[in-house]
């Protein structure tokens, strides 16, 4: 619509209305009388153009498309059928209504005309009324068809436009999410080769989008994390898991390491896209560093506290080492004397020398045990005989309880299954709890001081270690586990907090309970099998 200006608007619409209200009819007939007759008949209501042959008609149609063609069958140069065929051949004229006029009587030609695509067929002679009725009917029909078509076309195009707009919008939205996401997003093919990476991911690992095209995710994964990662990917592809999370290390392009936490799943394929592996990647280097620092600090603190604890015990430890040393020196003197006697008593001298060897070994053994207790090594969990661990601690404490007039009762269930634990940590745990008990017994007067240690098998694949004293007891068995809560004026108050962290690290629990009579019972629960964890 040539809506050129506001001024010309009405005029243009008027012309349009006029044109619309006066459809154009092309009349084709070689008979001049007939041609004029029909033209006159139709020109009352329509714009009429009349031509004498098929070829001219075709040219006229191409010059200006009429709304309907009324054509004689028998024509020079190009007959009605030929004209019809030519019109129907042109896609843009396919729907142009064509009415054939013929003098030829009989159903055959009528059918032939219709089969060739004529919209109607009028046999001469026809009445004026019949002619104008047919013409109008076909014009209306064509008009309707056109409108419906236009409507349909408009609908289809609008739907498509809307769909396209929605698609575009959605794509833009996802692209924006992908590009501006704070977390890294990476897509790889099923072999692990990068298909797409967002800018956060590129910044994280230090490669550009182009460089990623040539990389495999394994290339940037730390060697020690690769096997674990491969197994998970295989399980994902085989469908044994829907998705997985992995904490692993990436080698950045600059050669530095970062820690990441990846949530990985399969992105389903479509006709335009094959199945891909999608990873949402979070940089957890800072968190890992904090965790590591925290862990180190805790270990440090535990060690310092433990060392302080053992410091309190140095008198006992010194005594432990000193006893065999004293025996060594005394035996040495005896040996010299037996040899210096006249005559020398060799058998007595040999006995003394043999005792020197044995006592020397004893002293060395004490030193080894003490050193093992002081040693700070990485936690190494292995199957351990709990009874042996407890007996080792008792050997180290040796006369300590007895010298404090504490009678010690040890009950070990025979054939306890091994626990999965770190030897040094368990020794520290048992010794800490026993020293606590001994301290609680220290001020006791007027009743025999008792300390019992028992290791028993509990239900649900657990082993119980109970350390029970009849000492002065705890005011608040729950608060006692809090760091820096202490009953000792010079204590740090970390002993029980550390005991609990040791037990927790072994998947067990530690609790304290006031006894019905005097004192406290500490119960350690340890699982027989290691916890299933990565």
């Amino acid at each position, binding site marked *: 619509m040539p809506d050129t200006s506001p001024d010309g608007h009405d005029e243009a619409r008027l012309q349009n209305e006029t044109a619309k209200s006066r459809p154009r009819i092309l009349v084709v007939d070689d008979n001049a009388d007939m041609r004029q007759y029909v033209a006159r008949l139709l020109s009352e209501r329509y714009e009429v153009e009349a031509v004498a042959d098929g070829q001219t008609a075709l040219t006229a149609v191409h010059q200006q498309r009429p709304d309907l063609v009324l054509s004689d069958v028998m024509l020079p140069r190009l007959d009605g059928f030929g004209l019809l065929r030519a019109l129907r051949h042109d896609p843009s004229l396919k729907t142009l209504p064509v009415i054939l006029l013929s003098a030829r009587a009989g159903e055959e030609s009528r059918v032939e005309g219709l089969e060739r695509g004529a919209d109607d067929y009028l046999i001469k002679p026809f009445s004026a009324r019949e002619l104008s009725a047919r013409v109008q009917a076909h014009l209306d029909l064509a008009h309707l068809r056109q409108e419906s078509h236009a409507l349909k076309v408009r609908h289809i195009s609008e739907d498509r436009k809307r769909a396209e707009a929605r698609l575009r919008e959605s794509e833009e939205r996802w692209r924006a999410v992908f590009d501006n996401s704070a977390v890294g997003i990476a897509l790889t093919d099923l072999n692990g080769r990068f298909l797409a990476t967002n800018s956060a991911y590129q910044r994280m690992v230090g490669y550009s989008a182009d460089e990623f095209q040539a990389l495999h995710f394994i290339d940037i994964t730390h060697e020690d994390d690769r096997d674990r990662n491969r197994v998970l990917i295989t399980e994902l592809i085989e469908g044994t898991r829907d998705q997985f999370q992995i904490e692993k290390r990436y080698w950045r392009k600059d050669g530095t390491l970062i820690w990441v936490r990846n949530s990985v799943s399969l992105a389903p394929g479509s006709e335009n896209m094959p199945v891909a592996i999608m990873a949402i990647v979070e940089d957890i280097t800072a968190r890992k560093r904090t965790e590591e620092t925290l862990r180190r600090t805790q270990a440090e603190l535990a060690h310092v506290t433990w060392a302080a604890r053992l410091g309190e015990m140095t008198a006992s430890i*010194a005594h432990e080492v000193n006893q065999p040393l004293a025996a060594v020196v*005394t035996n040495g*003197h005896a040996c010299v004397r037996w040899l210096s006697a006249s005559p020398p008593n060799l058998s007595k001298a040999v006995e003394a020398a043999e005792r020197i060897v044995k006592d020397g070994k004893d002293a060395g053994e004490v030193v080894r045990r003490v050193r093992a207790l002081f040693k700070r090594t990485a936690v190494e969990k292995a199957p351990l005989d709990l009874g042996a661990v407890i007996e080792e601690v008792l050997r180290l404490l040796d006369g300590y309880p007895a*010298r404090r007039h504490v009678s010690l009762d040890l009950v070990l269930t025979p054939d306890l299954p091994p626990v999965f634990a770190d030897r040094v940590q368990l020794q520290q745990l048992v010794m800490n709890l026993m020293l606590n008990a001994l301290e609680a017994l220290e001020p006791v007067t007027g009743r025999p001081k008792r300390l019992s240690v028992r290791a028993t098998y509990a239900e649900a694949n657990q082993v119980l270690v109970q350390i029970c004293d009849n000492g002065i007891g705890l005011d608040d068995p729950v608060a006692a586990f809090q760091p820096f809560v202490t009953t000792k004026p010079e204590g740090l108050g970390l002993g029980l907090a550390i005991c609990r962290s040791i037990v927790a690290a072994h998947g067990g629990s530690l609790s304290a309970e006031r006894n019905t009579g005097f004192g406290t019972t500490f119960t350690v629960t340890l699982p027989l099998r290691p916890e299933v964890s990565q």
Partner: protein
Amino acid sequence: MTVDRQVVFVVDDDSRVREALSSLLASAGLEVAVFASATEFLNADKPDAPACLVLDLELPDINGLELQKELAEREAPPIVFITGHGDIPSSVKAMKAGAVEFLAKPFGDDELLRAIEASIALDRAERQKRSERASLDERYERLTPREREVLTFVVAGFANKVTAVELGTSEITIGVHRGQIMRKMGARSLAELVRLADKLGIVPRESV
């Protein structure tokens, strides 16, 4: 070394120390008896001979200092303390309570043997003193009440005449008493009788 019997008692809860000391003391020609605890020592039959007690300070049942206190009330041998701790307050306490020596483990054989010898010598003297005192007591027991009364005048230096007047008897009677006293007490002179009375703690009569 003297020919008469002498014994060293060793009390230590550590068998290694007991064995080593047994051997060392035996090599020095000493008779040794070892005990693992204070109770064991207290309950044991001990030979009647000059002795020494080598005592560990830290014992499981009764600690060394307590045992020392308990033994002080009896006629017990002198104590040589041995200890693995050797803290000053304990050693001071031990020495004040009459210990002969306080040795920190490990100790040299000479210092131990010297201490043991000194202890045994001390014990021998103590035993001597005790037996002298016992015989003195026994002699005093034989005096009649009248003789004991006369004794207080004799040791105070009163003449028989004065004593006779004071006791309302004759000078001759007092002379007989005096002779009996000298004989029963085994005193060869007045000076010796005075010394013996002094040992017995007899208070001489004040001037009348």
